[in-house]
């Protein structure tokens, strides 16, 4: 097969995967629920008045009423521990197990598509969903913030003040940071998904991995392993809100997540390419 054909075939399958993913009502329901997080947060802050003392509630909560651009950041902090992993668990856990449970996996494989290609395309699909999820949350946050609160130059954690365009850039960076974190979890979900033909099992197991990882991170006795936990740097994006921008945790998190992608990607590869498809 020529190289052009190879790429064309690959692109076609990616397009098909995304169109199947985004034509499911479930996908839109999850994105809609994600959009509700900044909306409810902003409404709650608006209704309660602007008297939240600093240090209470989630970080940045006290700033939301002063500057609408903080809605997205705060909503992100709320959504990272449970809600975003939950949606990733659903999408990534469903990748292979979902196809296997409906029997469509065998028809894809005899079409034929190589198993490696299918895995890569499934991972791309889950990653695109991660992008859509973080973008939905941030963009909804910006819009709600614009509607309900004053918006102006942003005061950073370091006390510096930056312009609105610079603030929007940082919002995009935070979204990228979280997307990379979710891609690490997607790789774990993809691997789990190759182990079973029951998608719900794979979805739940993926969420369990992220939850257990966060629980382990709270146990000081396990401090040695903390830097290697999938979720270790998940909340580290506050560094991006300093001036000058501190990319240290961005780099560390990316490195950690890429390691997870490599390890669980290889595990998924070795499992899936040798698996008998019996469903």
């Amino acid at each position, binding site marked *: 097969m020529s190289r052009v054909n190879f790429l064309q075939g690959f692109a076609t399958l990616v397009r098909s995967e995304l169109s199947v993913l985004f034509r499911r009502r479930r996908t839109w329901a999850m994105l809609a629920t994600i959009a509700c997080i900044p909306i409810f947060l902003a409404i709650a802050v608006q209704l309660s008045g602007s008297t939240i003392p600093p240090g209470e509630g989630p970080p940045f909560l006290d700033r939301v009423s002063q500057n609408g651009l903080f809605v997205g950041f705060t909503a992100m902090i709320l959504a990272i521990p449970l809600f975003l992993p939950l949606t990733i668990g659903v999408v990534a856990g469903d990748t292979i197990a979902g196809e296997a449970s409906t029997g469509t996996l065998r*028809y894809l494989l005899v079409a*034929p*598509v190589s198993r490696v290609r299918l895995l890569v395309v499934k991972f791309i699909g889950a990653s695109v969903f991660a992008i859509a999820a973080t973008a939905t949350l941030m963009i909804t946050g910006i819009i709600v913030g614009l509607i309900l609160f004053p918006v102006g130059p942003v005061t950073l954690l370091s006390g510096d003040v930056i312009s609105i365009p610079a603030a929007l850039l940082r919002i995009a960076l935070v979204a990228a940071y979280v997307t990379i974190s979710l891609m690490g979890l997607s790789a774990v979900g993809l691997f789990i998904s190759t182990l079973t033909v029951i998608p719900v099992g794979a979805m739940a197991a993926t969420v369990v991995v992220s939850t257990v990882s966060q629980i382990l991170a709270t146990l000081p006795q396990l401090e040695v392993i903390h830097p290697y936990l999938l979720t270790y740097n998940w909340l580290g994006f506050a560094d991006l809100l300093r001036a000058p921008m501190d990319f240290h945790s961005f780099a560390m998190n990316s490195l950690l997540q890429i390691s997870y992608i490599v390890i669980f990607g290889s595990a998924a590869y070795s499992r899936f390419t040798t698996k*008998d498809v019996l469903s």
Partner: protein
Amino acid sequence: MPRGAIFGFLGPNGSGKTTTIRMLLGLAEATSGSIFLLNKSIPFELRDALPHVGALVEGPAFYPYLSGRDNLARFDSADSSADPKTRTARIESALARVGLTAAREKKVHAYSLGMKQRLGIANALLQPRELLILDEPTNGLDPQGTREVRTLIRDLASQGITIFISSHLLLEIEQICSHLAVMSAGKIVAQGSIEELSFSEILNLNLRTPDIDKAIATLNSLDIEARNEGGAIKANVTYNFIAPETIVDALVRAGVKIQGFTLEAPKLEERFVSLTGEGFDVAR
């Protein structure tokens, strides 16, 4: 199996038909032995063989929330040898072939079992194929649908496509297949053309008459050991031992009133049962 044949693959439930098909298509790995599909060694040259093979494996499976047409488009996009420019046209003609053009926009969860079965066959026909592997192709179809599928299979075979049908419906196999193999407990127990396999040394004689005693006496005088089975006379006659018209002639001369008479090879079903065993304990 010979090219251009309609090859019936028979066997009781659990005898290994579907497992064999899965191994042929590279879905499962064989623990021993070698497999050749269109002269390609499986699983090593799977990617060269599969584009020429259309398959319906273990019943149809689709994305319930997509329409019939979108389902076909999904599977076609998985095949990198399929030309995206002709995709729409190929899908339309495959749908037309199985009579689903009117239902192509409907979501598959609204399809009946027969429609899903036909959509599965359409999926196997998306590209010009050399070989079609159809696992229980008429499962869930009504009599009209079954006839349609049979006609479609004959039509495809006449275009030179080799067709491999697995089934436990003997009647279906008997009606359309030119060759067959019988599997039992994971082994092929008989294989050949349908003439070879239905040929039998012993023919079954069936006679219906009110004059039972007289008929038995006449048959015995012809060296045929006849017996009375619940009002019908049965006997086993060696092939070419005596012509059927000679028997009838003798019976009529003896004054036996004949209501019905047949002398024929045992049905495929009897042959099948004799090869694979009787009862529910088959293939244990």
